[in-house]
């Protein structure tokens, strides 16, 4: 298991280098010059050249990239062109906000999704099942910013019990978390139901009944643990998506997280900031995948032992 994790971490570094290279090249190709944006087209060519030199943009591309790589190894992504703040500090600040939002949405999505999925599976074919699945379908297909606005209207304006923007008080996170988590909760509910229905048909569930196991334990222990693998796969991907920030939700609720940062960096062609953000996003996905793979092993001894034997 340990050597497996090490191997995966090694792969992670390769993936990150690859992704940073692709981003770097893309940014050269995409039109829009940061210096021109910065100087708002009023500057004369000498000033532009001076600034380019200052930012190191006049160096050959390969040198630029290797400099970037060298610094990145020390977690130094340079400073933002505009705010002159170190990229890592900006990332960290936004990450804290996104992390808070993610944790809440994630808990909301997992708890609501798995509970609804289990209930729908137990009540398969009944009105409760149809109601829950319609709700899940709605959560999945309704655009998140639309849900966000509806929530703002109902809870923020009509009932006036929750703040509709900001991020300083804990309650401010409630609406964005629900808005962001809704579609994930819907997804999780649907896969939980499918997976549970598949598992409860299995022979070992009949064996558990024949043994006299209580019905709720059959569901929560015997069935759920077997149904976890597809659920974990989905939950993992979704965790990745949440951690990389939601541009829409962060915008609607004016929460300065990673999503907002990425959009701002993009529109202003703030290359160091953009590179840092992309590398961060890639890093999150790779790590989440690793965690997902490790947790498969926690739930399924066949995977756990398979890995153990092959090393």
């Amino acid at each position, binding site marked *: 298991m340990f050597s497996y994790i090490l191997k995966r971490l090694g792969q992670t570094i390769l993936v990150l280098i690859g992704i940073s290279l692709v981003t770097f090249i893309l940014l050269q190709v995409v039109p829009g010059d940061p210096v021109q944006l910065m100087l708002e087209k009023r500057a004369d060519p000498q000033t532009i050249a001076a600034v380019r030199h200052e930012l190191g943009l006049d160096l050959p591309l390969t040198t630029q990239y290797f400099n970037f790589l060298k610094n990145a190894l020390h977690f130094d992504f340079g400073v933002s062109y505009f705010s002159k703040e170190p990229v890592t500090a900006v990332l960290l600040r936004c990450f804290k906000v996104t992390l808070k939002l993610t944790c809440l949405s994630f808990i909301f999505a997992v708890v609501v999704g798995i509970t609804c999925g289990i209930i729908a599976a137990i009540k398969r074919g009944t009105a409760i099942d149809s109601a829950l699945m319609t709700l899940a379908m709605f959560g999945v297909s309704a655009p998140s910013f639309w849900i966000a606005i509806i929530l703002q209207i109902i809870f923020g304006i009509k009932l006036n019990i929750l703040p509709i923007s900001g991020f300083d008080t804990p309650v401010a996170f409630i609406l964005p978390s629900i808005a962001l988590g809704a579609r994930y909760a819907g997804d999780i509910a649907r896969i939980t139901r499918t997976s549970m229905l598949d598992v409860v048909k299995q022979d070992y569930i009949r064996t558990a009944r024949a*043994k006299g196991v209580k019905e709720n334990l059959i569901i929560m222990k015997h069935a759920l643990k077997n149904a976890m693998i597809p659920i974990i796969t989905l939950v993992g991907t979704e965790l990745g998506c949440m951690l990389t920030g939601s541009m829409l939700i962060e915008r609607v609720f004016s929460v300065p997280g990673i999503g907002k940062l990425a959009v701002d960096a993009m529109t202003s062609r703030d290359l160091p900031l953009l590179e840092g953000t992309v590398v961060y996003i890639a890093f999150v996905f790779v790590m989440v995948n690793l965690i997902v793979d490790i947790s498969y092993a926690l739930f399924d001894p*066949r995977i756990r032992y398979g890995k153990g034997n092959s090393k």
Partner: protein
Amino acid sequence: MSENLIEVKDLRTYFFIDGGVVKAVDGVSFNVERGKTLGIVGESGCGKSITSLSIMQLLESPPGKIVGGEIIYNGENLLNKTKEEMRHIRGNKIAMIFQEPMTSLNPVFTVGQQIVEALLIHEEGITKEKAKERAIEMLKLVKIPLPEKRFNEYPHQLSGGMRQRVMIAMALSCNPELLICDEPTTALDVTIQAQILELINELKEKTGASVMMITHDLGVIAEIADDVMVMYAGKVVEQADTDSIFEKPLHPYTIGLMNCIPKLTEEVEELSVIKGMVPSYDDMPKGCAFCPRCDYAKKICEEEMPELIELEGRKVRCHMYSEKWKEEN
């Protein structure tokens, strides 16, 4: 003293599906005596499993439903018990072993956890340590080598035969009075089959439990059963003690099954088979269900379902043994 542990009377279990009603078990009656083994034989689909699942009340419902009859266990009708009362009987008083050892154990729990679970449910006040001890004892009893090590292994680490032994250990862990075995050896290869049967026989002697052995193999019956019930299309067609049935099968279907057993003493050109197939629920013949495949069938067989008649202390459902038949000839 031969006392009945369980008496099934006129059990009817139907499946209500889109196309109609499948009468999977249709008026089946039988008794299992204390300490005795009842063998239930019949072709695939004749209702053997549904009979046993009805006793356990483990039917998939809907579409399955017990629509009639009684299951008297120790003087009480199990069909009047609540769900919770049945749960205390299942795995405790009546235990069951299934056909598919490969899929009948939960893949994500160790063998030990699964046996201990049964003990913790039914043995009042037993501690975890005590339960573990008992579980290892049970593994020893079913002749699993290195029981302490196996205790911590997962089902996928065991062979089919070993898994069936674990199932037996689990089923017997709470000293049930009735052990229902639904084709416990069908999925195993021949040598393992013999070992498992021998084991069931031996443990039955040791614990004094009654056994219901479901099979489609008369060889298994000869090996293990005291009494036999032959089923066909949801109904009992013949009931007798094992010796007499092997000596002189009465029902043409039983005769057919007997002829299907390859005999070592005779040189046979080809294995005999019963021609035709079990009729499906939507074209059940009006008369005897076996009639379309029967060599002896007459007009009356097509028209009238024969009663289960008593004859020399056994029972058979065939017009051949009725008064009418004798009159006609």
